[in-house]
Every structure is written in structure tokens, then in C-alpha cells.
């Protein structure tokens, strides 16, 4: 059997891509080395955020994705059996606060620039912030309300997208590891070798999150995706006292930073089940999943600056995961010019839940020759900002390839897409 597309990775990005490929009429197989929704998609808070994005291409992708979530959730509810658990989509809004005097003006400036880019960012007074969040520490120095920020239960959302993909005929193979490429006589990628045999396909999409670098290496391509570890604390259930996604403005600094050392910034929000999630940390320690008490302590201490009442609450669980970090802070979406047949849908760092739907639409359009909903070039594997992070041979090949127009890629894709 030869599929049109083979998607490597059954997290939320792979599931979203498989679903839209199938909707476009392609025959699709998803191959996953473990169980579905078991990696990064099961280790986050389910953020669908605009508030932490600075104006630019990532914000555009986030804004586009945000428009897709409400209808997608409605479609999933209609498509899946009534016994399927809720994806807990909630447009709860975000509240970003500064907790220091020097931090106030940068937050307001940042919000103003976002506002110019079409984000609903509303500077509010402390009194207004306390209306939104009565238990917030009143000693804040600035506050911005982002009504568009939303949340889903990320694991269930990934499972729901995958279940919807299956309804559309997608085959899902779990517990199968990709071990190598299958190349045509002309050197194009036409499938992969796996721990359970060969899988043939016209296109291969790597959507393996932080493990995308390993998968790419197995296929013979260098990819500078690195794991960036994060930890989240989960409290015991409590009466609902945190109503928005509330975070300290230094979270933005942490998401935009490349620093490998530990960074923590406070993010506090409630879940539908009554627990409160307290994040977050960013640390580049490879795939080391050992537990670090100091990280947890720092997260806890910073959360108390936002919500002093949390001091009396208890943490019952902590979980860690790995974000797919890109050195130039831009998701990687599109065809890899170094190896015809290979595509990437990865590198979303901590925003993959929110960006999954937009990513799926872009890559589907590129593959089938349709007009992408937003300009795909900033996310292209051939972009200039990525070149310094690839080895020199790769960089040269990438820049040669980028001389070819995007239309070539799309035409090529359209041929095989049309043959489906």
C-alpha cells in the first residue's frame, strides 16, 4: 500500500495535519513510536494564546489558528460519539500583569504594538483587574486583558483530532519507530523504514515535536530542533478562584528567550476539573526528565506573587515535558528542499496546541497546491534565519533551494496530490 502522506508523530500537530490531509482527499497513515498524545501534547496546559506573541509571523499564525478553534471544536463534537470526552475548549481570556515598576511600561508598550497588529489587548486599571480576578495580588503595576486567549484540554484535543482523522479514513499505527528512509532512484524520499516494516508514501511529514530532530536524523537530514524542558505544578481541587489565564509579564521574556539556563515565570490558571495549574519553567537540559525540586520551588514562589491565597493550597502532582525549541523561535512548516518528499510540521515550542490547526491548513494547502491561508514563507525550512543553525553543507543546499519559487514546490505537490 502506498499512501499519499505518511505523518510521523501522533501528537496534536500530527493529528491535526492527518485530519486536514484526509479532508483534502489524501490517503494518510500516521505512525507513532509510542502511544498517541503521549509526549508534549500530554505535558502542557492547553494554551491557545495571542497574549504572549510579539507582532510578527508567529502571531499571524496564532491569530489564524484562533479563528479555527471554535468551528473545529463544534465539528469534532458533531463527528465524534457522544461518549467522547469534552476537549474543554474555553475562551476564558488572559490577564497579563506586571509585578514590578520597571516592568509596567514594557508590558503596556508590548500590548500597544500587539493592538496595532489586531490583537484585542486592553490595558486595564488595578481595580478592573481585581474585578476580573478578585484574589489577585493588588500590588501589581500594570495589567492587560486579552479576551481572545483560550484553553483546551490538550491531550483530549489531540485524541479528538486523531479520532476525527480516523473517521475520515486515516490509519494510525502506534508503537512503531521510524528507523530510516526509503529513497527512490533519484534520491527522493518515498517512505520510511520502521521497527515493524516499510511504509511507502508520496510525502513524509515529520510532526514529532521535540523528537523531530531524531526522526530527521534517522532520515538523513539535520534539523536543529531541541527539547526545552518545562514543569507544571497541579494543585488539589479547590473552589473556582482563578478565572482567567493569569501570568506575569516576564513569561513573554522567557518564551522569546534562547537562554539554555533555567527560567521560570508565573502562569496560573484553573482547569475544568477544579485543579489549578501553576507554571512554568524553561530549561535546556536535553531529554533529562529528572525532577528538580529547585525548579518547582521557584515556580511556586513566583505564583504566590500573583495569587497569595495559593500559599495555603497544596500541590499534589507535578509533570514535566519537552517543548520543541527552534533556535530562531519560529515554527517549521513546509517542504524540506534538501530532501524532496520530506515535510516538516514542528518547532512550535510551547505553542503547538494553539498553532496546530493553522499549521495543518498551511501544510495541506502547500501539499495540494492550494493557496495557503496565510503567507507560509516565514515558516519555511528554507528561511534565512535558520541557515546559521544548519551545518554548512545543509545551509548551502537550503539557500540554493530557496532560489526556486514556492510555486515550484506547490506544483510538485499538486501533481502527487492530484494523483491521489
Amino acid at each position, binding site marked *: 500500500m502506498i499512501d499519499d502522506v505518511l505523518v510521523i508523530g501522533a501528537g496534536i500537530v500530527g493529528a491535526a495535519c492527518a485530519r486536514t490531509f484526509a479532508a483534502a482527499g489524501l490517503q494518510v497513515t500516521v505512525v507513532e513510536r509510542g502511544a498517541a498524545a503521549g509526549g508534549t501534547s500530554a505535558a502542557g496546559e492547553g494554551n491557545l494564546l495571542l497574549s504572549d506573541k510579539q507582532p510578527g509571523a508567529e502571531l499571524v499564525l496564532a491569530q489564524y489558528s484562533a479563528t479555527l478553534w471554535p468551528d473545529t471544536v463544534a465539528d469534532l463534537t458533531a463527528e465524534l460519539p457522544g461518549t467522547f470526552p469534552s476537549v474543554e475548549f474555553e475562551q476564558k481570556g488572559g490577564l497579563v500583569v506586571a509585578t514590578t515598576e520597571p516592568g509596567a511600561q514594557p508590558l503596556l508598550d508590548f500590548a500597544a504594538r500587539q493592538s496595532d497588529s489586531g490583537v484585542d489587548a486592553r490595558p486595564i486599571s488595578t481595580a478592573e483587574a481585581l474585578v476580573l480576578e478578585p484574589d489577585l495580588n493588588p500590588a501589581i503595576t500594570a495589567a492587560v486583558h486579552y479576551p481572545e486567549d483560550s484553553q483546551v484540554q490538550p491531550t483530549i484535543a489531540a485524541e479528538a483530532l486523531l479520532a476525527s482523522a480516523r473517521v475520515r479514513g486515516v490509519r494510525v499505527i502506534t508503537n512503531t519507530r521510524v528507523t530510516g528512509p526509503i529513497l527512490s532512484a533519484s534520491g527522493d524520499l518515498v517512505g520510511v523504514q520502521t521497527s515493524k516494516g516499510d511504509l511507502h508514501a508520496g510525502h513524509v511529514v515529520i510532526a514529532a515535536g521535540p523528537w523531530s530532530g531524531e526522526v530527521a536524523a534517522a532520515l538523513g537530514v539535520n534539523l536543529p530542533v531541541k527539547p526545552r524542558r518545562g514543569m507544571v505544578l497541579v494543585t488539589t481541587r479547590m473552589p473556582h478562584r482563578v478565572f482567567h489565564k493569569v501570568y506575569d509579564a516576564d513569561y513573554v521574556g522567557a518564551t522569546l528567550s534562547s537562554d539554555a539556563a533555567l527560567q521560570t515565570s508565573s502562569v496560573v490558571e484553573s482547569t475544568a476539573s477544579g485543579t489549578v495549574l501553576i507554571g512554568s519553567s524553561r530549561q535546556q537540559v536535553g531529554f533529562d526528565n529528572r525532577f528538580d525540586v529547585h525548579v518547582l520551588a521557584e515556580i511556586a514562589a513566583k505564583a*504566590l506573587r500573583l495569587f497569595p491565597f495559593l500559599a495555603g493550597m497544596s500541590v499534589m502532582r507535578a509533570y514535566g515535558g519537552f517543548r520543541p525549541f527552534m533556535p530562531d523561535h519560529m515554527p517549521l512548516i513546509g517542504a524540506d528542499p534538501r530532501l524532496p518528499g520530506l515535510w516538516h510540521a514542528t518547532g512550535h515550542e510551547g505553542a503547538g496546541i494553539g498553532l496546530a490547526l493553522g499549521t495543518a491548513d498551511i501544510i495541506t494547502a502547500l501539499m495540494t497546491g492550494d493557496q495557503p491561508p496565510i503567507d507560509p514563507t516565514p515558516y519555511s525550512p528554507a528561511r534565512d534565519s535558520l541557515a546559521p543553525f544548519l551545518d554548512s553543507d545543509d545551509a548551502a543546499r537550503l539557500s540554493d533551494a530557496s532560489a526556486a519559487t514556492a510555486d515550484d514546490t506547490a506544483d510538485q505537490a499538486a501533481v502527487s496530490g492530484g494523483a491521489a
Partner: protein
Amino acid sequence: MTDVVIIGAGPAGLAAATSARALGAHVVLLDSADQLGGQYWRHLPTQRPSKHEAGLHHGWAKFQKLCADLVADPDCRILTQAQVWAITAAESSAGTGPASTGSATTGSACTGSAGTDPATTGASARNSAGSAASTTSAVPTVHVLVGEPDGVGRERLSFSPDAIVLANGAHDRALPFPGWDLPGVFTAGAAQALAKSERIAVGDRVLVAGAGPFLLPVAASLAQVGATVLGVLEANHMQRIISGWGKKPWQLIGAASKGAELAGYARNHIANRIPYLTGRGVVAAHGTERVTHVTTAKLDTGWAPIAGTEKTVAVDAVCIGHGFTPRLELAIAAGCALTAERFVRVDAHQRTTVPGVYAAGELTAIGGVDAALVEGTIAGHAAAGGHLSDPAMKSQVAKRITFSGFARRIEKAHGIRAMWPGWLTDDTIICRCEEVNYGAMCQTAQATESTGLRSLKLSTRAGLGLCQGRVCGRTVEELLACQTPGGLSDGVMTDRRPIAAPVRIADLAAAALPASPGRNSPQTASPSKPSRPTT
């Protein structure tokens, strides 16, 4: 001089402390309870001593001797109400901040009665030198909160010793059945704990049911505190029990009854006329405010209930026990490998796969008190730098050989059989914390077609509540595996709990504060004794 931290002060931990001290190691003995003795030697508070304590316990004299020697020993620091909430591998915390740069960070009170200023605590000088050397080893750090479990401002300590002995035991397991969440339904262990520590019977008319020899001492304890025990129902058939116990069944007496003499139980049963029925179990409990009666049924050899054999019994309490689950979270956090049966893997020295970490007692197998005492003795000796060839270990090594295999024999005779879900109904609660019932759990698993426990836990919410799957975890895993063709495949275990006990956020946050002078000085197993145990 070797610093040894021992976690758990039941039989294995007390034995380990004793033998580690015999080799001259400095010992810190930690237990989350108010008293020494663990579940096994649970007893009345010191303020209310009983002359009859010996009658309720096997080996009471042994326990008193172990305790008295350790309490009197200035180089054994005993901390009760000491909850180990995390164990972290050494390298992961290195160099990430002031609170984790050294071998140990302690609240200033850690120096205890010797004074809070490290410059004035002569005893800590040795520790400073000793612990500096230990930073290069891979022995994990033990993070402890000391104080009332629900108290504010528990004292935060951490230890980076030369060796750790894990002896934190097991908790009893109860399989769910319709109505098991009614008041009046107890785990066998909880019922026995109330009898031993408070002299309270959980009811007047009590049925004890489940599997395993532990049901016998539970029934005996209940009878001793005044309950009428209507019977003990053992789910397994006599034929399997006999075949499992095998040759020399008297060898298992100590192990099987968790130490009590079988003859004593037999006498008790006869005196109290407690019937012992095999191949039968409680399949439902009924009542509105609390349990008023239960349905029992014959079970086939796979534990499937046999239709038409149901009987109704009026009770005001029922005690359920289906064996024990080792408390693996600390061992897993430390990085210890597990066996296929999911116990901590140890060698003849009780060494785990992590250098400097030893395990003893029910973490390694449910083998009973005698095995726990031997394993603890060997573990303490090895942790303190001793060898099995030392003369003091000769008899212990021989006993360990005798006891090896006991757990397997008990499991063969009394272990849980696969068809027990036959007594569940769709509305039977499986996870009590999150109120997830059997029907909803199965439906979600079928709808998502997920093969991963991580995802299934999050989509069903089973095992995500306050107890973090301690009560329902193994049951959730088994039931979800039944819904998944080929079983669960992501290797995730409900036993993994990096936060081993709930921690108040204020206590957790305190660890991030700038280090105070006392906190920053390396202190490990200080020989001072700030906290006297109550025995």
C-alpha cells in the same frame, strides 16, 4: 563515617537502622507517622499505653527492644511526622541555584538541639566535610517535611547521605465492587489500623473478605476489640491455596500472617467462632446512609462470580483486602529499576540498581514481617559499608535464602485473578477521588482508542485525584488494559509520583527563598536529636 538515611520505621526500617548503627554509621530514621513501628507495629499513643499491647502484636518484645536501643542511641537521629515528599537524583539539581549547590540544604532548625548556628555546632563539622565528598557521588537527595501533616509551616529538610535505605512498605489493596464507596466499607488495613491504634472496631457485625492470609489477623484484631466477625471470605479456592503454599507450609506462617502465629489465629477463630469460607467474595454492598447488608457470591477459579449463588448478609461494616501494593514512588523517583512483578529490584545485599540506594521489606516483595526484618538487617549492614561475608550476617543470609520465594508462594495461593471485573457494574465507582465510574471509563477508552495510560488517565481522569492513584491506580491500569487490544503500550505506571505527598505551596516556595546562614551550610545526617519519637 557513613551517613545513612532510612525511610520508613516499620520492621524493615528499624532493623536496618539497628544494623547500620552496629557498624557505626550515623543514621537518620524517617517516618511519616507519629510513632515508630509502621503499619505492622501500629499501637496506642504513648499517652494512653496499654498493658495488652503485646496481645495484639506478634514480636512486640522484639519491637520494644529495637525501639529502645535506637531511641537511646545518640548517633541515630529519629524523625517522626517526617514526610519524604521527593527524592531527586544528584546530578539533576547540581548548580541550578543556591538551594541545591551543596550536598544538603536544611532549614536552620535542622541542626536541632545542637544549635542553629553551624559555626557553633561541633557535630556538624564532621558532616560538612563528609557531605562535601558525597556531592560527587550519585546518591540521590531526600527531601523531607517535618510536622503535622496538615500543619502550616512544616520544617523543610533535605539530606544527601552516603546511602539510603528505602523501607517505606506497602499499602493494602481493595478491588472495587458496587457500593464499595458506602460508609462502612473499609480496607482491611484501615480496619486493623483502627483496632491497633485506637482500639476501635469499625462495626458490630463485620464481614471480612478478599484474598490472602492478612485477612486472618484483621479478623482477629476486630474480634479482640469487640466486633462480631461474621466470617472471613477468601476469594481463592482451597485447592489453589494448598497448591500455592506448597511444601513446608509452616515456613510461610510468619510471612503469611505478617508475623502472627497461625496457631494463635486458629485459636482465636475457634474461640470467636469465625467461619472461614473459600471461593466466595463480597460482590456488592447496599445501603443508603451506610452499608446495611452485602451480597456475597461464589467465585469460580478466575474470580468470576457464579450466578445463582448470591447470598445477602446483614452487616454494619465490611472489610476488604486483596493483597498489597508496594509504595514505589520514592524508588522510582530515585531511579531504581523494578522487577517484572513491579517490585524494587534488589540483589543479595538489598542493593537497588542505583548506587547507594538499598531497599528492604515489602518494597521488594510481599513476604511478611520476618522477611522484612532480615532484609532490613542486611540492607542496613550493606548501606553502612558492611559485607555479606561478615560473621554478623551469616545467619541473616541463611534466613534470607529461606524466605526467598515466600512472596511468590503467597502470590500463587492468594493473588488476584483476572475475571474479577465480572462483579462490576457500569455505575461502580473506580476512582473515588475523581468519581469516575466503570462505564464512563470504558466508554472513553473505546471512543479514543488510546493505547497509552498517560493519555487515558487525562481523558478519563481516573487516578488524577488527591490520592494520585494510590487507591485505584493498579485497578485503573488493569481495567483500561482490558479495553485496549494488545494492552497499554506506553510503559506509563500509576506508581510514578514525583511529588510523593501533597505539599503546601507555601512550604514549596520557601525552598526558593534566598538561603539563610543556617540553611546554606552543608548539613547531612546530623547526630543531634531534635525530635524524640513516641513509642
